[in-house]
């Protein structure tokens, strides 16, 4: 293995540029370095103006999502030597506006999270003495969807989101399903208004790239298809049994 590797990193400064360009940096190639280590090396030793987000460096905070050779990755979990001899192209996450260098605008994503009402909704006044009883099987029913770290790699992987930024998107819909399937929640009906929309689940054409990109195996695509079935059943029920279940 060679001593060094070239990183081609996207640069964009709104005060100076109208669009991003790529700048090359030569960094040491260490066997245990992640791509993030190379980026912090650049910032510390070569060019302090490079802008990127990172925090936990252990794949749990979701800050460091970037495009690595065209594939959305968490740079803190992506081994640098996998790309030897290089060069490696690092860019900001696809399908998001770019604020600077590798930093993207996240406000739209947060809006999507907010609009699906991601909290426990109770319709009745029942308050258990201690905890709501929930068996391990009931927990399994939604546990996978609780694992989302909000890294937005699924949005970068989804061409539908790229073509239609109004699409609620995989992570937000998976989060809604997380609450819909939680045995303690009673808000499924409320969330239908937001989800069963043209820019909600029906925008999804089952490409499946979101689940492939997900570093936490949340499988948001399954959540969306699961909800399509639920939404369809509810729609039939609403006109076959209009007075039932009210």
């Amino acid at each position, binding site marked *: 293995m060679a001593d060094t590797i070239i990183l081609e990193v996207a640069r964009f400064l*709104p005060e100076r540029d109208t669009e991003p360009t790529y700048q090359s940096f030569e960094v040491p190639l260490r066997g245990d370095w992640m791509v993030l280590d190379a980026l912090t090396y650049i910032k510390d030793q070569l060019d302090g103006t490079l802008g990127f987000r990172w925090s936990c460096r252990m794949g749990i905070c979701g800050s460091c999502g970037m495009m690595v050779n065209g594939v959305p990755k968490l740079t803190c979990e992506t081994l640098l030597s996998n790309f030897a001899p290089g060069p490696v192209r690092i860019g900001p996450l696809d399908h998001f506006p770019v604020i600077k260098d590798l930093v993207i605008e996240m406000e739209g994503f947060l809006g999507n999270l907010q609009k699906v009402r991601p909290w426990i909704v109770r319709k009745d006044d029942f308050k258990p003495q201690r905890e709501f009883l929930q068996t391990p099987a009931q927990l399994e029913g939604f546990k996978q969807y609780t694992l989302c770290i909000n890294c937005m790699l699924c949005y970068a992987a989804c061409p539908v989101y790229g073509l239609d930024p109004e699409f609620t998107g995989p992570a937000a819909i998976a989060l809604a399903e997380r609450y819909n399937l939680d045995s303690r929640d009673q808000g499924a009906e409320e969330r239908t208004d937001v989800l069963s929309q043209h820019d909600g689940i029906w925008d999804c054409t089952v490409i499946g790239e979101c689940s492939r990109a997900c570093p936490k195996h949340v499988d948001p695509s399954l959540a969306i*298809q699961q909800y399509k079935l639920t939404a369809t059943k509810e729609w039939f029920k609403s006109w076959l049994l209009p007075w039932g279940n009210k």
Partner: protein
Amino acid sequence: MPQYSQFQPKPYRPRMSAFWYFDRWPFLLFVLRELSSFFVAYFAVLILVQIYALSAGPTAYAGFQACLRNPLMIILNAVTLLFVLLHAVTWFNLVPRVMVREVTGRQLSDFLVASPNYFVFIGASAIVALFILRIL
């Protein structure tokens, strides 16, 4: 020069290229999968025409068969066969990706969920083939 006024940076908004599906193989496969539905529709129409020709009498049917022997039709139908196979394979492989967890309990592997579709497909095709080849 960019239009920048102090404290109001304009973010860069990337545009997806019109040929985005050539960027990555899974995207191209997806687009071909979607396009295959045209060929499936065409094939359904072809069968309807065939049934109509059958009910309109032996001359009409002979005319239909002659049409099918046209080299252009052979090419079209060969391509249609490929696309219909692609359609079947991609949809069979999707079944485990969209199966609702309450039904499978998530303990069944993808193979166990997808393979019954293949068995039925191959079995049904075998039976039809036996009829066509005059064995049955």
